[in-house]
């Protein structure tokens, strides 16, 4: 009797944990475990037929088709946020400097490229968790635990925009741009209380001439756009680095930059 109430009490906990996972694969496996516990609790409710059906369908089939739908083989998975000039959605095509580089790199490895647009803050998490192979979309070189950044393929600068007069002092916390570029509203950016730090490509897209230029501060030290690769995938990281070097040597990188970043 105790085992029954304990198991029944366990069900909501396992379900809640499974659904609050950030990684989809963990959530699916979590729900698989939930189905198993549910099948066992049906046994305790004297319903063997239902337990068998729940186990075979809930645990077996549903988890199988989810894993098959998510499973990645034979593909280079790229997650990125939209960045003008680097990773842009045009109708149902995608263009941009970084997309061109990664598309050629994928062809070079014999894989087909699969791109997904995610908020900027999730790029590092998805790459670190192994759900995606490469993170792109105007990623400015910075130290992120467990993630390798390739050598920068394009130099850039950081701008802090907005913040009221007294808000742009040194001590004020600078909020890094995190969300969807599509949701970024240029008008409210300049009037927001907390200043937002943007990279060059996105700053050029939201720049407005009719704003006093003292509310925009340019950070002095030089920065560079780079790709982000999972810490455990050394082979992919070195291959991507070598590929970008080769592009830079035969001038292909500058030609592409000219074409996309007029």
């Amino acid at each position, binding site marked *: 009797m105790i085992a029954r109430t304990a198991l029944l009490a366990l069900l909501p906990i396992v379900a809640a944990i499974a659904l609050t996972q950030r990684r*989809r694969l963990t959530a699916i496996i979590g729900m698989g475990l*939930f189905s198993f516990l549910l099948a066992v609790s049906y046994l305790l409710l004297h319903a063997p037929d239902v337990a068998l059906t729940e186990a075979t*369908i*809930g645990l077996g089939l549903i988890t199988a088709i989810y894993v098959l739908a998510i499973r990645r083989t034979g593909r280079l998975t790229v997650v990125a946020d939209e960045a003008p000039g680097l990773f842009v959605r045009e109708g*149902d095509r995608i263009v941009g400097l970084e997309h061109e580089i990664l598309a050629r790199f994928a062809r070079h490895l014999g894989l087909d490229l699969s791109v997904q647009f995610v908020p900027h803050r999730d790029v590092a998490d998805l790459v670190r968790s192994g759900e995606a192979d490469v993170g792109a979309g105007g990623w400015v070189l910075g130290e992120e635990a467990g993630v390798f950044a390739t050598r920068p393929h394009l130099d850039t600068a950081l701008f802090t925009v907005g913040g009221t007069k007294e808000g742009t002092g040194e001590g004020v916390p600078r909020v890094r741009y995190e969300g969807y570029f599509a949701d970024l509203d240029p008008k409210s950016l300049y009037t927001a209380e907390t200043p937002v730090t943007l990279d060059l490509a996105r700053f050029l897209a939201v720049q407005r001439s009719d704003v006093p230029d003292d509310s925009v501060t340019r950070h002095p030290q030089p920065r560079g756009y780079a790709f982000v690769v999972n810490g455990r995938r050394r082979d992919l990281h070195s291959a991507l680095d070598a590929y970008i070097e080769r592009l830079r040597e035969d001038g292909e990188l500058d030609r592409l930059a000219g074409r996309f970043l007029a």
Partner: protein
Amino acid sequence: MAFSVGVVLFGIGLVAIAIRRDLVIKLLALGLTNAGSILCLVAVGDRPDARVPICAVCRDAIYADPLPQALVLSAIVINFAILALALVFVMRLVERYRSTDSRHIEDLVQRDLDEGGGP
């Protein structure tokens, strides 16, 4: 007790559908809501210290009620059918919109609808 757990599971699933924006997690939550309602139905048919309803002469002891169990066999299969189809539709959406974020897809669909002059 089991009925209450079923309703709580249904609630957790609903909250996850309303809050999580990733479509795959929403479908998992939908699976959870259906599992919750099925647990309620099975819990209704159970008696304290009952026995499994497989018996030639079933009058000597208390047996669990077979009707909810038979109904639930159909409900589980129906929920699998719905989830398999919903997953296929999410794959079609990702192929076109390259994102599994429901709010993002909603904006892109509205953009397509406005361009195409309505459905």
